């Protein structure tokens, strides 16, 4: 019986564009190389060395430093500064973002605030510390202006009541540190929370009003629960940013405020303390705290994206 076989299936030749699109992942190579060399490798090295003594032998004794009252205090101060600045920066940043997105702010003002936030969120470290010293330090120009505002009291004597340093303010203290950190914390909050605020649909507000809810009830029952994971996630990001900061605090306070980052630097640099292996153990402690922060951030983000995927 005659049987005509169908022609063999020849795979269609792929166009150059199809072949290029299959290799698009190559674009990620520099990123993964960067992550490997500047995050994974140093972190693994840190972890390994935190379990070594000066002779390279395995030891757990480096972690005994965690019981040292100075170390506990340094962690506690770092945590306190991070919590305060993340909450202050978070609240302030939220209201700025609210004004940008929902406050009928003119477009030029929105653009200005967003550009400023992008710049300020990355303006930390020594330049920030010096700009604060130059403005609000003991001889800063804002301090000088405030100092110069004097007038005679009823007895005829000159009084200069606006000198901030006579009123308990000190830039080189925890207050100053919080102020300096807030400078880069609140713009970071603006950048992180703006997309979430933009994601609030106008129809949700209108639907709640239509069902009898006041604006306050809308925020309590609808907007804030929807935004809560984003707000908490962004605040955790601020916490992480403050917790890992070193240069701003060191340049501003010269090490007089005992932050964990400053303590680690002292241990590794060896000019004040000299046990880099204990420094590595302290750094691992920081990594654990940061890891928990990132994990919490991811969990909260996933919850929001689940709600909003409809």
């Amino acid at each position, binding site marked *: 019986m005659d049987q005509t076989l169908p022609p063999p299936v020849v795979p269609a030749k792929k166009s150059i564009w199809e072949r290029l699109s299959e290799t698009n992942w190559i674009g990620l190579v520099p990123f993964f190389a960067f992550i490997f060399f500047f995050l994974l490798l140093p972190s693994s090295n840190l972890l390994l060395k935190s379990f070594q003594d000066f002779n390279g032998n395995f030891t757990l004794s480096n972690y005994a430093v965690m019981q040292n009252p100075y170390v506990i205090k340094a962690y506690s101060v770092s945590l306190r500064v991070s919590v305060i600045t993340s909450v202050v920066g978070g609240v302030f940043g939220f209201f700025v973002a609210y004004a940008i997105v929902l406050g009928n702010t003119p477009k030029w003002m929105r653009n200005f605030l967003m550009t400023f936030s992008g710049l300020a969120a990355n303006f930390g470290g020594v330049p920030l510390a010096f700009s604060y010293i130059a403005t609000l330090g003991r001889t800063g120009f804002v301090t000088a202006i405030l100092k110069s505002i004097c007038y005679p009291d009823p007895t005829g004597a000159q009084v200069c009541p606006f000198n901030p340093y006579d009123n308990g303010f000190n830039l080189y203290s925890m207050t100053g540190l919080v102020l300096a950190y807030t400078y880069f914390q609140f713009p970071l909050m603006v950048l992180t929370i703006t997309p979430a605020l933009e994601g609030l*649909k106008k*129809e*949700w507000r*209108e*639907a*709640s*009003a*239509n*069902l*009898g*809810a*006041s604006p306050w*009830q809308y925020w309590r*029952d*609808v907007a804030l*629960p*929807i935004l809560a994971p984003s707000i908490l996630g962004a605040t955790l990001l601020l916490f992480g940013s403050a917790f890992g900061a070193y240069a701003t605090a060191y340049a501003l306070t010269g090490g007089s405020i005992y932050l964990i980052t400053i303590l680690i630097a002292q241990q590794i640099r060896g000019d004040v303390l000299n046990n880099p292996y204990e420094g590595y153990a302290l750094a691992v402690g920081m990594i654990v705290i940061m890891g928990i922060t990132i994990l919490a951030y991811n969990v909260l983000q996933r919850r929001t994206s*689940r*709600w*909003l*995927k*409809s």
Partner: protein
Amino acid sequence: MSYLELTNIHKAFGTSVAVENFNLSVEQGEFISFLGPSGCGKTTTLRMIAGFEIPTSGYITINSNDLTYLPPNKRNVGMVFQSYALFPNMTVAENIGYGLKIAGKNKSEIATRVEEMLALIHLEDYGKRYPFQLSGGQQQRVALARALAFQPQVLLLDEPLSALDAKIRVELRMEIRRIQQTLGITTIYVTHDQEEALSLSDRIVVMSQGKMEQVGTPSEIYNFPATEFVAKFVGQINLIPVDAHEPEEGLVKVGSQVVRTAKYEILDNKPLRLAVRPEELNPGHLDGANNLSGKVDSITYLGSIVRIRVDVEGHPFSLDVFNERKLNMPVVGEQFQVNFPVDACWIL
């Protein structure tokens, strides 16, 4: 006085006029559709009833109570949005019960009402689900139940079916009509879909450029369009430029061929147009009817209907015939005769 009254409503956004001289009386339990193209002012009018926009002038009353300047949360008017607008952080039951919770009803009362509403929309087992776990059609049914749960005076629907696919749209519009009739609730429905408006409404308000073009029952709107806009917007229509022949006798000329219609007047040299729906035209010659002769220009299959375009001395007439397998189709270019009843055409 009617249940819902919109009197001399005018709305402008800066120099742009969105709604002009809008007057409408709606009886209790009536289903009214605002029909028109995008930007004709139908949604703006609906939003003024809901309180999301304030009229520039005019006033709105429900049950004789003036609510023109009342904030939206004090109006007791239910609204269904095109994008559903369900609260994503609440379950279906919480969404439906939200209006009752805000009104301070107790938990058992809310639970009972939510159950009733879920049964009404046939989603009894979906109370604990979140909106993202529902299809578009289910979400819109929940939105409808939410808007009805707190027993509003008027139900407003802003293009509620636009985001759904064709099959679900047809199912859901029947559902909406069933629920509306079951509850007897006064309803205003905004749509740009003439089929939706015609199939759902007791009366239709056709709007264009912020103005009311015509208000009437679906039959009046379709069969007796008052303006050229209504005639063109609702259904298909042949609008053919004609020459006056004997106005008193209702005669006009299509090219050299005479057509009889109702008597007409010539106003300010306004060009005359003969209006006739494609389904009123029939193939062949019929004594006592208007008969025209032309050439077949094109034939288009539209599923159950076949549209034949006939060129009558340079004027294209479309006629619709039911698609039957035995249908003897003409050939493009051949001579073709069409007829239509005298009372099926009119002059615009």
